[in-house]
């Protein structure tokens, strides 16, 4: 039999029959210009012959973050940080590095706080920030993408407004604030320039 797709399909069947776990995707790519046909054969076969699953495999797959119950960012981000023992300061530092805005830790930190507190909508965040967060937290980008549309009740803001206004009402703090670097407009755009921005 010279047909490449059939040869590879036989290989797939043999491996499954011997208890191995063939990588269907690798075989399909190996088929070259017959990839479509082999993919169809494997898909049709796999649809009618579901794989056996071991407890160990199930343990591994069940730990994948994309199988987690959906949670809005104010719940998800702290949970992911806790899972990876990533402090907010570390997250902010690595975000600044990934986003190419070194020295903007305070500004980025404020935005991270606002995201975790539900004070700004994740929908306003630029895709670059989503990618950077996913990389730092070690999760698929799509996990964050899909969760940022989940609504969260905004907390009462009066206290925070009061705290913020009080800070700048203090002359000493005003003078300290004047020593801090100017806000980088690129950071504002990264965190608020998205769809809702």
């Amino acid at each position, binding site marked *: 039999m010279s047909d490449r797709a059939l040869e590879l399909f036989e290989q797939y*069947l043999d491996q499954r029959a011997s208890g191995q776990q063939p990588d269907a995707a690798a075989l*399909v790519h190996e088929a070259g210009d017959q990839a479509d046909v082999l*993919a169809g054969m*494997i898909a049709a076969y*796999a*649809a009618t012959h579901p794989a056996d699953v071991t407890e160990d495999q199930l343990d591994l797959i069940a730990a994948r973050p994309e199988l987690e119950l959906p949670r809005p960012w104010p719940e998800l981000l702290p949970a992911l940080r806790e899972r990876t023992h990533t402090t907010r300061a570390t997250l902010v530092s690595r975000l600044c590095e990934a986003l190419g805005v070194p020295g903007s830790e305070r500004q980025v930190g404020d935005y991270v706080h606002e995201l975790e507190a539900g004070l700004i909508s994740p929908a306003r965040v630029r895709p670059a920030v989503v990618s950077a967060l996913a990389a730092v937290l070690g999760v698929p980008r799509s996990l964050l993408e*899909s969760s*940022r549309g989940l609504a969260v009740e905004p907390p009462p803001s009066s206290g925070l407004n009061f705290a913020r206004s009080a800070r700048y009402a203090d002359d000493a703090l005003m003078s300290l604030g004047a020593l801090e670097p100017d806000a980088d407009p690129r950071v504002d755009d990264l965190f608020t320039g998205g769809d809702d921005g």
Partner: protein
Amino acid sequence: MESLTTGTLAGTGSFRCEECGYVVTLAAADSLPDCPGCGGSRFAQASLSDGDPGRETARRCVGLVVLRHRDLVRSVIAAKVPPGAIDDVESDVWLRFSRKAYSGDEITNPVGLLLRMAMFCRADFHANRPAAEPTLGDWDDASDDAALDDIVVTAAVADLLAPLGDRQRDVVWQRIIEGRSSAEVAAMMNTTAGNIDVIVHRALSRMREAQP
């Protein structure tokens, strides 16, 4: 749960040290280091839902469906997506499927749903769309649910075999879908194994020509 040791290429995810509980997070190409907390070398996969039995049960149910049909999803993706992007697209499929499962709607035909999602995700990949963002609401839409539930595996397979004549379809079904040998199929159809191979070869050529 299976232990993983320092130096293992464990794949993307988080891993908890079995000695001190420290969690390390790896990208796909990273190998497990010695534990930064205690220097230990044995790890188990960490879970976001550690300590919550309800969540863990839900994840395992979704995970079981995912694993049983993984070859289906990966083969469909691989037909149109370059090797370096397959894991990401697959991840999108699992994400969409789990969201659908957690929505509370009954999934009457998980295989058909996974097939459809795999096709959507690879289309999203080529359109350079953020895969899951615009579709989360879509999957939760009742009218879309009805459409998805209408998809059945037999229909997908029938589409695949549509270009074939009746005899070719019978042979391919027995040889490929049922996994019988050429000799077995030949005996059923009163012909030779060599003739079955020829029929399959021609059928594959026709299926290949019919692919868009």
